[in-house]
């Protein structure tokens, strides 16, 4: 045990392994943060949510920090609401039973690009006669553009970007461009400055009210951007971390130690036990690993834990058994095993106390090296559309991106974010495993 600890300490001599350890540490911290900040139920509810949760996010928007690296500044999402004070509201009684509610939405717009779309969500409170609103847009250079007027029900959504009459009035430009366009610019450029949306709502009842929320859907969003369903990718990126680590670690632990144990049993008992294990190994070599997982996913269930179980079962009798077997065969002949037999140790005692400890140096690097393989297996299955149906994982982001033509559309962030995380995870474990391999296998050390 002491030598084991000493060997592990030796890892500090390998800079790449230290890098790997630091990255794994950060990933574990990220995973813990994900678990604490966003409980399982909440993550799933968020990830499966639709418009009601993600309605205020733009579609397929790259992360907001891209602005720091780009000359053309793109607008993020701006939400102005009369109910939270980001827009002002004042009342003026016109006549008996008629009140004008004026709502002003100040829009500070220093950006070069245009928003993705613009919508206004009205909520009105009235008994019988619905309020009537008229919308006017004021530009920094003093122009006044009449947008539209209509009556509002209890709730009404007005999508400026889809109003064709408005588009015609804006000389054929959709609202999100036409409203911000510098007059006479060709190609169309945005005019920076402070804009104003003025909505005058006429209510016909004394205690009727109108409120409005105006959303300028941005071209960029948040730390990680959004996907085709307006979902914030940071949810899946964050939650993908514990899922990937758990999948990789559980699969690696489950397979490596079981494989070693089976090899030990085979070698120690020999005879038909050994033969049987060898034959199962050969059968396992013929069985198509990935197609079987795909079949289970297609026919039965795509649950990540079922996949994990199936992957472990199929890997346990993998080619590694032969490697452990070769080592055990040597160890079995050692004099100290004979000594153990002579003092009357039973088979299990010999296996656990004398055989298995001897292969730990081989098992530990193998264990660490197996982790990336399983992490990528999960991602690969997700890419084939066999990702877990509820859990957000990195592979499922790649799959979504791929199915929605992210690479064709130039939405690189969508593919790159999960891929980079996968890469970092894979490399970190591979670098550690690599160093461990050299530490534990003296033949490799000088090499």
């Amino acid at each position, binding site marked *: 045990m002491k030598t084991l600890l000493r060997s592990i300490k030796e890892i500090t001599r390998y800079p*790449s392994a230290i890098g790997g350890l630091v990255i794994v540490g950060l990933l574990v911290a990220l995973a813990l943060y994900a678990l604490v900040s966003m409980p399982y139920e909440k993550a799933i509810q968020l990830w499966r949510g639709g418009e009601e949760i993600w309605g205020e996010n733009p579609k397929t928007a790259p992360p907001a920090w891209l602005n720091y690296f780009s000359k053309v500044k793109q607008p993020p999402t701006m939400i102005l609401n009369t109910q939270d004070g980001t827009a002002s509201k004042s009342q003026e009684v016109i006549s008996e039973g008629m009140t004008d509610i004026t709502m002003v939405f100040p829009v500070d717009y220093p950006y070069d690009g245009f928003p993705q779309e613009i919508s206004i969500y009205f909520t009105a409170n009235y008994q019988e006669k619905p309020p009537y609103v008229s919308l006017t847009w004021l530009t920094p250079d003093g122009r006044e553009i009449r947008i539209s007027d209509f009556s509002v029900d209890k709730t009404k959504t007005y999508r400026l970007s889809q109003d064709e009459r408005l588009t015609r009035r804006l000389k054929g430009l959709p609202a999100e461009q036409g409203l911000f366009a510098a007059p006479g610019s060709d190609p169309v450029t945005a005019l920076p400055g402070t804009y104003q949306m003025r909505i005058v709502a006429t209510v016909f009842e004394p205690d009727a009210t109108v409120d409005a929320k105006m959303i300028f859907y941005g071209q960029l969003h948040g730390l990680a951007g959004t996907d085709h369903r307006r979902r914030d990718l940071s949810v899946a990126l964050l939650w993908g971390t514990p899922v990937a680590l758990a999948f990789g670690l559980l699969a690696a632990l489950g397979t490596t130690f079981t494989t070693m144990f089976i090899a030990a049993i085979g070698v*120690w*008992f*020999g*005879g*038909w*036990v050994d*033969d049987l294990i*060898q*034959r199962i190994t*050969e*059968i*396992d*070599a*013929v*069985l*198509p690993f*990935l*197609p*079987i997982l*795909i*079949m*289970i996913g*297609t*026919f*039965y269930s795509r649950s990540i834990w079922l996949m994990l179980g199936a992957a472990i079962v199929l890997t346990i009798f993998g080619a590694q058994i032969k490697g452990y077997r070769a080592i055990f*065969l040597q160890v079995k002949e050692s004099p100290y095993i004979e000594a153990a037999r002579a003092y009357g140790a039973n*088979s299990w005692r010999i296996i656990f106390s004398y055989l298995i400890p001897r292969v730990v140096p081989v098992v530990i690097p193998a264990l660490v*090296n197996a982790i*990336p*393989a399983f992490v*990528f297996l999960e*991602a*690969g299955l997700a*890419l*084939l559309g066999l990702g877990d149906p509820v859990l957000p994982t990195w592979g499922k982001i*790649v799959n979504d991106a*791929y199915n929605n033509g992210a*690479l*064709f559309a*130039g939405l*690189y962030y969508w*593919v*790159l974010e999960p*891929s980079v995380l*996968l*890469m970092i995870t*894979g*490399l970190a*474990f*591979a*670098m550690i495993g*690599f160093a461990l391999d050299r530490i534990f296998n003296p*033949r*490799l050390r000088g*090499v």
Partner: protein
Amino acid sequence: MAEATLPLQSGAEAPVKRQASSSALVRLTNYTLVKLATLLVTVVISVYLTILIANMGGYVDEIRRGQIQEAINQQILNNPQLRTLSQAERTKYIEEQVRIEEERIGLNRPFIVRSFSYLTHALTLNLGRAEQISSDSGSRQVRLVILERLAPTLLLFAAANLITFFLSVFFALYLSRKYGSLVDKLVVMLSPTSAAPGWFYGLFLILIFAAELGILPFDGMVDAPPPPTLIPYALSLLKHMVLPVAAWTISTIFGAIFAWRTFFLIYSSEDYVEMAKAKGLSSREIERRYILHPTMPNIITTFALTLITLWQGAPILETVFNWPGLGRLILRAIGQYDTPVIVGVTVIFAYLLAITVFLLDFIYALVDPRVKVGGGGQKA
């Protein structure tokens, strides 16, 4: 427990030992027969297991029955002539159609009976007809369906795997001479990149060379429409092959070079290599006689296993690159519950693997004088 297995063990080994002392030919024949029988049993069991899994132990039958019912109901809804039938007539018609369709794909027989007929057909390489999938030329013969997809797969993966194999072995030999040099250190540093699979690098390559630079196609095997003459066709094919082959090569090459290099280095620290150096043999000579020769069995094994594995393709890489190979055929077959196709691919692989394992024993004996066929009891 150890005592209990002891008689069995000696029982199994005794005849082998006795024959070992008699003529070599008898020993060889005996060994060959036992080996063949074992391999055959392995093939039978693994193919049968695949059949069971491909049908989820009969559960897939339920899905297919549901699908047939659904399809026939739909067919009746869409057919104005049939809509005029009375309720009783229609029910009769549906039942009849369902029966015919179930008979066509054999659902009328119990699964367990069918599983054994699948097995005998598979083992005799009578691959039969696919249930849903047909080849591009319109054939339902599993043999033709597989053959049609085999060419693209072989093209892609033979190129990728052969490049990787030969490049890694030769480069590793070179590095084992230049141990500790800058190139060597670089390769060692890069070897963890092999932790990621080919499809993963494929994503990056598509991003860089297809999406950003636009100099290579995103996916597919040839341009659409395919060029009519040979040379433009080949060029188009080549252009489409670059990225998938590169993706596969990047993901395997550094790990492979590192593994071979380490392997060669271990062998070049043997005493007899030192001895050869002391004798003043040229490094080429040492490499050939004292390093390549003893490592030949390993090189051959790796090469043989590479060859028999590569033809199956890789479903995920083929999906990423939209390559019409066997990997994607398997995916489609699974998606459409087409057992004959899945089993067909598996049984071919099982036979190839069994034959290779069988032949390797003899090849070992040919290239390595220390190995005698059937001599070592340890090797299985």
